[in-house]
């Protein structure tokens, strides 16, 4: 996938608040990520908590993640996984909310695209680059001074379209920290095969801690394969057949 991502090299430690009572660091790391959107389907994950320009608070409505009212994205379709299919939306600056339903026949409440959630965008506008701006997401404080915080992505049974909650790229387990301790064994990972802007199925992996050294097997789990590598701002499907699990990441 043509995905150019530039993560601000020196993320600004904008606010460093130290609670004297809890002795826990609470630092908001501010930054931006540029993601080019080629024509057609693009696998996109919001890598940062967006900020509502009016309230200044975290608000990951797609209207804050993508400038829908600019008109530059008009006609693009958004696909949000609901657990068994997609809820489909149309970006349309002519709609009162900036987002229409699948047929774009009525305005709907814009979906929320929080970090850790992957979506498809069917981009019909050439030359778009979206700049995600905001703060690095945290679900909990760091346990020590060298850990700023933690994120937790729930992995329920069944299919989820998910992404790293942190803006990092790399091996799905070795870098992104998807549990490789056997707790997800038997689950399947699906990476969308996007060719010429269309989703031509998925490349499938099996999570299997017995497949050494990567911890991943092919679709039939008959041979060990290299672990999938996920770019910043990219997501993947997981079909969790092992049991509800949490994917915890430290930053």
């Amino acid at each position, binding site marked *: 996938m043509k995905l150019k991502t530039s993560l601000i090299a020196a993320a600004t430690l904008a606010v460093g608040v130290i609670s004297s009572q809890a002795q826990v660091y609470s630092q908001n790391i501010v930054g931006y990520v540029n993601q080019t959107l080629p024509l057609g389907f693009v696998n996109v994950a919001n890598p940062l908590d967006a900020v509502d320009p009016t309230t200044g608070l975290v608000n990951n409505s797609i209207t804050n993640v993508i400038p829908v009212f600019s008109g530059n994205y008009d006609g693009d379709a958004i696909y949000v996984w609901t657990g068994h299919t997609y809820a489909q939306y149309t970006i349309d600056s002519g709609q009162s909310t900036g987002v229409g339903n699948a*047929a774009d026949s009525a305005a709907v409440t814009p979906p929320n695209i929080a970090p850790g959630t992957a979506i498809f965008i069917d981009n019909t506008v050439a030359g778009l680059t979206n700049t995600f701006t905001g703060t690095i997401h945290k679900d909990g404080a760091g346990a020590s001074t060298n850990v700023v915080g933690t994120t937790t992505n729930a992995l329920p049974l069944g299919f989820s379209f998910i992404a790293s909650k942190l803006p990092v790229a790399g091996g799905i387990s070795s870098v992104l920290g998807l549990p490789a301790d056997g707790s997800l064994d038997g689950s399947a990972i699906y990476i969308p095969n996007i060719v010429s802007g269309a*989703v031509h199925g998925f490349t499938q992996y099996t999570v299997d801690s017995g497949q050494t050294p990567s911890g991943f097997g092919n679709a039939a789990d008959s041979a060990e394969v290299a672990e999938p590598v996920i770019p910043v701002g990219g997501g993947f499907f997981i079909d969790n*057949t092992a049991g509800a699990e949490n994917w915890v990441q430290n930053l």
Partner: protein
Amino acid sequence: MKKNLTIIALACLVTASVQAQGLVVFSSSTQNISTNNSLSQLGATAVGKTLGAGNYNYALFYSVAATTVNGSATASSGLAGNYVWTDSNWTFAGDYAASSATAGRFVALSANSDGSSTVSGLGAGAGAQFVVVGWNSALGSTISALQTALATQGTFGFVGESAVSGQLIAGNGALIPNPNTFGGTAPQLQAFQLGSFLVAPTPEPGTMALAALGGASLLLFRRRNK
């Protein structure tokens, strides 16, 4: 046990993908359909974006192999249009749409709950090219009614056909997303125009014979008077 469950789940997923009918979203979204009125018979019918909910009908066709309609991939309109039903490589998807209250737009008449339309005969995950034919609803609500109207003397109205889309992969209501048929760039369909037409009345043979008889009578009458 876990592996068995995984295999069963995967088998179900694959089976669903193979057997399920393909899904697309059949609406014009932000692409506007327009009309081109050059007929006095149509009076002051608007020129420009189509107006009025239900005033225009649309039908969706697809082909797995063909990338042209009778050798042309461009849009056409009016009575001399290059219509898709004259090319056996194309199949009616079974889907109709109608103009909505928003000028220039249309939405599917029988969409699924997720907004998609089922493409009859096209498998989920399969690729196909699409073409849309549009006409004013006074000509009828079906393709066969439109064909009849276009062959009926004295009929007038609007009709047009989109260009041929690029390949779209039909969704499956599961992991493979349902593509929009219309969008700003290829492979999706873009805005197109419905052209005005009039099927000119041609005299029937009986009428012609009567006219000839009348002419001959006039000539005879003149000779006798001379």
